[in-house]
């Protein structure tokens, strides 16, 4: 049969082997038809991955081969989408990208110049040394870099980063997380910029001379009972004696520590056929192990990536840059106290408060959002102190609450409540209590609400953008505030606007305060309107 490339995907013969897809000689993706496709008349249709679709408009030579390159299924020029220019999967700097094994776009090693490859390996070596000397953990090279070193004596062509792991002595997840916190503190003190991905793994961000940032993952590995857990999501059976004491491997002229029995580790990670190249390999992790790791280590950044995608994507331009009607309603009530915009997003209201002469802070869990606010503030000559707050990570909430207790602010949150899960919402009330009790500021909230007189407004109903915001029940919000010692001074439920300023029939506004425990509670009744 003929292999057909179209806007829908690639129609090719049924097979359980992997194939490689190149555009104009550059590797972009690998697929296994039986696993990734759906049966159609004439073969199996494998749809294009969502991350590639934005790039698939134009003309280019698409070559599809088996992993040896000997069997060629397709090698011809193809036009996709409405574009007339060349097809190219590239980042903003023009660097070639490909789909990695977890479905993200990344720059593969084969498309990285030799000098930059050396920078990655030197940076990885420095990370290992810093982890040992300053963070007190002995880490080893693992995953793709280990596989490349053992199987091929070099980095895998389609790999995009390096992964380090350390074997924790702890067996209690709480101790393992606390150890990971100490490691990130030590690495930050050395100047490493890093992201926390879960309670057991961080990403070290290594800037490269070509403008790209290489991610060096630092994963914990540990035993609980007889089960070995290795982050990402691996779990199963591998004794400590297969890992320690370490062996040494060489990669492009650099020596790295490796598990004592690298073959046993590779079989644990990639299964018994690890010696056969398969760029389209996907992990098949035991679901009970994933469930345990999710429960122990994760849950505080589930939607962070989606928000970062939104704030860096084209739809963010649909958010007005001018002040929201809610900000204009709040502003005359601020008086002399500074205001902190919680979940600032694009920063439109924080920037406007600053322009009105208020000392203004802005916090968000998305670093993309904060970067945008800082850039806009600098560009407009405004002072907005922007910092990260991860509601759901108690340390983050407690440390900001402590600071605000001695530096009184009003708290302002527009369309934040609908983004929070129950745990994060509880921490918002904790933050408000810590921040507002000593200083006397107010909490101003606006959110798309439940209204029994408006159809389709049940609690949890997804609203724009793309379900990242959900409707919230004002009664539940009020109960949460009162449970944490706050008093709702004013509550209204009326037509208003969503975050794009599109009309919404059920929008709730709340003003609440947290009186100091020694002061008599206010007897003034809540002003309630609808």
């Amino acid at each position, binding site marked *: 049969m003929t292999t057909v490339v179209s806007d829908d995907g690639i129609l090719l013969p049924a097979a359980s082997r992997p194939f490689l897809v190149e555009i104009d000689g550059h590797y972009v993706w690998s697929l296994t038809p039986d696993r990734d496709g759906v049966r159609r008349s004439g073969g199996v249709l494998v749809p294009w991955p969502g991350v590639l679709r934005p790039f698939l408009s134009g003309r280019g030579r698409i070559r599809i081969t088996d992993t040896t390159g000997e069997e060629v299924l397709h090698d011809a020029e193809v036009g996709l989408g409405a574009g007339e220019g060349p097809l190219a999967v590239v980042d903003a700097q023009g660097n070639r990208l490909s789909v990695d094994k977890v479905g993200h776009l990344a720059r593969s090693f084969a498309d990285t110049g030799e000098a930059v490859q050396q920078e990655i390996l030197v940076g990885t070596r420095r990370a290992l040394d810093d982890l040992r000397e300053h963070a007190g953990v002995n880490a080893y090279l693992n995953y793709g870099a280990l596989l490349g070193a053992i199987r091929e004596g070099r980095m895998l062509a389609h790999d995009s980063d390096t992964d380090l792991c350390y074997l924790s002595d702890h067996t209690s997840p*709480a101790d*393992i997380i606390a150890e990971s916190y100490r490691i990130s503190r030590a690495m930050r*003190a050395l100047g490493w910029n890093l992201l926390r991905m879960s309670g057991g793994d961080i990403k070290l961000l290594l800037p490269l001379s070509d403008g790209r940032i290489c991610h060096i993952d630092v994963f914990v590995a540990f035993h609980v009972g007889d089960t070995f857990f290795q982050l990402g999501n691996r779990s199963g059976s591998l004794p400590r004696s297969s890992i320690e004491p370490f062996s040494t491997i060489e990669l492009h002229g650099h020596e790295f520590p490796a598990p004592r029995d690298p073959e046993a580790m590779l079989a644990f990670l990639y299964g018994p056929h690890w010696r056969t190249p398969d760029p389209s390999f996907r992990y098949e992790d035991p679901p009970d192990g994933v469930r345990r790791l999710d429960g122990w280590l994760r849950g*505080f950044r589930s939607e962070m990536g989606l928000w970062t995608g939104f704030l860096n994507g084209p739809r963010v331009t649909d958010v007005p840059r001018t002040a929201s009607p809610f900000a204009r309603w709040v502003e005359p009530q601020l008086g002399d106290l500074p205001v902190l915009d919680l979940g600032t997003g694009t920063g439109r209201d924080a920037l406007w408060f600053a322009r009105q002469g208020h000392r203004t802070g802005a916090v968000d869990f998305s670093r993309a959002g904060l970067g945008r606010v800082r850039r806009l503030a600098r560009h407009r000559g405004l002072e907005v102190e922007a910092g990260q707050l991860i509601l759901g*990570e108690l*340390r983050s909430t407690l440390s900001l609450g402590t600071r605000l207790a001695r530096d009184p602010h009003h708290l302002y949150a527009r369309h934040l409540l609908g983004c929070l899960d129950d745990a994060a919402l509880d921490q918002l009330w904790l933050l408000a209590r810590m921040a507002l009790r000593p200083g006397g500021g107010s909490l101003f909230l606006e959110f798309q609400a439940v209204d029994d007189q408006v159809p389709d407004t049940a609690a949890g109903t997804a609203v724009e953008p793309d379900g990242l915001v959900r409707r919230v029940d004002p009664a539940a919000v009020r109960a949460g505030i009162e449970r944490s010692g706050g008093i709702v001074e004013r509550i209204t439920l009326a037509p208003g606007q969503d975050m794009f300023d599109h009309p919404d029939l059920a929008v709730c506004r709340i003003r609440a305060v947290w009186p100091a425990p020694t002061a008599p509670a206010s007897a003034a009744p809540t002003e309630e309107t609808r």
Partner: protein
Amino acid sequence: MSTHEIRTRLRSQARDRLPGPVVERIRGRVSLRDRVRVLEAEVQENRQLNRRIAELTDVVTELLIPLDARDQDRVDEVLSRYQQGL
């Protein structure tokens, strides 16, 4: 008669023919499945406490000693460094 109605009628006839203890055992299994589902949710909630314990431990071990010393300059410095190190 629709397929759904036929299926419901056959099920009910089959149930009527089963002896009482067997029906009870089947009902018990359904309830056991529900109980396992609830238990799994509760176990997951308990797993989540690990992160809470680790966070509280981290805050206490990093911040409590300078706070106890009542050295305000040291407290300010430690708080600021703690927040930057998160």
